[in-house]
């Protein structure tokens, strides 16, 4: 009842100055619109760049580092003797970069609840032979289906069918850059030389484009069995195990654990891509600060208009107080004016923000390096709308709070006697 009356009065005061009110509301609308559009766009860009890098990076990467043996032969001899060994010019131990007992590790990982998926991989250095010229390259032997499940392999295969890799033996999906350099098409045969000097013929079944041209110039994909054949290794030869976790934030902890457990090197995504994370964070930070500055400016607009309104409505405030409205009531009236402006302007802003985002989403954006992107990326995260809505209300509340407090302190005697 009382709230209704107070709202009623503030609404009448609002309508009496509807042009000013509208200007204030448009200020809020504009800033919220920009806030939403900016954040959606920035988040869209972040997602796109993340997709480019992070989604293709395993959360935890298990591999074997080529390094010197921790226990040199001399230590066997010097065991239990009071002696120090100084060894010069140590070389890495003659060990293959394979992960020992990989099948058992993969089995164990697949049973773990924290693990979303496991994809084994073989990395092999090769030369692509083009006539007399040799181009250096890296062939990744992958489990096609697992790789697609975890890293969305399919979207980056721009020509040919990625499943052919599994079906056709001795097949290869060439990096787009490498294929361009070698002047080959899908269906052609190419020849590669392994580091051991073996020459192998492979059939090109597709092209791969990651969007990063340095990678596309060297990387190619084959199935695990083809890679094993290529290297002349047995069918338990695996050089890398890629793990995706259910919770990416657990990666550093899990990596440390697996390093000990499986006696391999383990790299977590946060360490591998720390500069990338920083980039995303800074971009979000910039868009949030611009959005919030816009809102604060709109808040000052409301503050000004309410201050003016209070000067104009001194008589009204005085008589309301004289006829029994308390300072608190007067304060509520002016705060509800501010909140009305905020809610009205804010919800319009959310609507326009959505509209503007949808429009940006339609603008064509084509770049050779990003085959899957056709228009500017937009992230329609409801969180932005919630933040925008809450922030518009909070800002207008504070913009209204100080003028309202001033109004509540108006001394009716001074106004009434002043006439």
């Amino acid at each position, binding site marked *: *009842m*009382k709230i209704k*009356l107070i709202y009623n*009065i503030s609404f*009448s*005061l609002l*309508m*009496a100055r509807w042009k000013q009110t509208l200007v204030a509301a448009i200020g809020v609308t504009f800033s919220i619109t920009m806030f939403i559009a900016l954040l959606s766009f920035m988040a869209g860009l972040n997602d796109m760049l993340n997709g480019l890098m992070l989604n293709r990076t395993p959360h935890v990467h298990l591999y074997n580092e080529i390094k010197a043996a921790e226990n040199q032969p001399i230590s066997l001899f010097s065991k239990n003797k009071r002696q120090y060994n100084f060894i010069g010019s140590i070389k890495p131990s003659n060990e293959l970069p394979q992960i020992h007992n990989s099948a058992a590790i993969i089995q164990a990982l697949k049973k773990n609840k924290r693990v979303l998926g496991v994809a084994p991989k073989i990395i092999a250095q090769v030369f692509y032979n083009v006539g007399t010229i040799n181009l250096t390259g890296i062939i990744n032997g992958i489990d096609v289906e697992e790789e697609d499940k975890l890293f969305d392999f399919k979207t980056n295969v721009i020509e040919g069918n990625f499943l052919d890799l599994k079906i056709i033996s001795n097949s290869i999906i060439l990096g787009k850059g490498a294929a361009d350099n070698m002047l080959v098409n899908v269906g052609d045969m190419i020849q590669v030389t392994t580091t051991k000097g073996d020459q192998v013929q492979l059939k090109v079944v597709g092209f791969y484009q990651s969007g990063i041209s340095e990678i596309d110039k060297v990387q190619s994909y084959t199935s695990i069995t083809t890679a094993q054949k290529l290297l002349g290794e047995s069918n338990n030869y695996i050089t890398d195990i890629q793990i995706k976790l259910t919770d990416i934030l657990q990666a550093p902890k899990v990596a440390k654990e697996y390093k000990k457990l499986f006696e391999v090197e383990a790299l977590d995504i946060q360490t591998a891509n720390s500069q990338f994370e920083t980039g995303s964070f800074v971009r979000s930070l910039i868009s949030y600060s611009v959005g919030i500055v816009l809102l604060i400016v709109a808040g000052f607009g409301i503050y000004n208009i309410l201050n003016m309104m209070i000067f104009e409505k001194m*008589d*009204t405030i*005085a*008589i*309301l*107080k*004289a*006829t*029994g*409205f*308390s*300072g*608190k*009531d007067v304060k509520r009236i002016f705060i509800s004016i501010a909140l009305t402006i905020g809610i009205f302007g804010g919800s319009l802003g959310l609507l326009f923000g959505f509209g503007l985002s949808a429009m940006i989403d339609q603008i064509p954006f084509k770049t050779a390096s990003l085959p899957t992107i056709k228009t500017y990326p937009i992230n329609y995260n409801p969180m932005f709308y919630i933040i925008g809505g809450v922030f518009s209300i909070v800002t207008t509340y504070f913009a209204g709070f100080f003028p309202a407090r001033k109004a509540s302190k108006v*001394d*009716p*005697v001074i106004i*009434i*006697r002043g*006439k």
Partner: protein
Amino acid sequence: METKVLEAIHINKYFHDPVKVQVLSDVEFSLSKGEFVSIIGKSGCGKSTLLYILSTMDTDFEGDLKIDGVSMLKKKEAELAQVRNEKIGFVFQFHYLLNEFSVLRNVMLPGEKLGKFAVKEIENRAYEKLKILGIEKEALKKPNQLSGGQKQRVAIARALINEPIIIMGDEPTGNLDKKNGDMVFDIFKELAEVYHQSLLIVTHDNEFAAKTHRIIEMADGEIIKK
């Protein structure tokens, strides 16, 4: 025994700015139910100051003030607002109607604030008051469409809406011509005699004051005649 609706007990008031000046000294009087009293005095004698103290809007004074037998000394701002809303009706020199609202709504507002009755009932009562004052036809107009005399009558209707125990007026006829001034006086007189409404009117119009039941004369912050 007559009930006292208003009692001023040894009221002293000082202005502190720029120097301490005593504007009211030891003002003491009371008002019974149904009395129509006027306060007169020269400009600057403190009569308006006294009225604002009596109306609870000015709380910076010494002494005690009782309205309807209750001391106002210890009350908080919101409680005083409640007292003004419920027990006091105001008529000022200037009408102070809110142009944003219709005449009817202006009259209704203090009633809606009190919230004793449903809105519909308050509307009926507001019509009733406007009828007593003969301006029910203007109910749906905006205040700025009315003449000065009509506006002042609307202000009186507004003062009456919560059936206060006392109506206070600060030169209510000061801005009106003779004809409208007389009409406002007649309304006050009728309220006092027919409806037994207590009225306390500050005026410097001696002719107006002469027709009231009792005159309190002030000079230099003191009551010189009760």
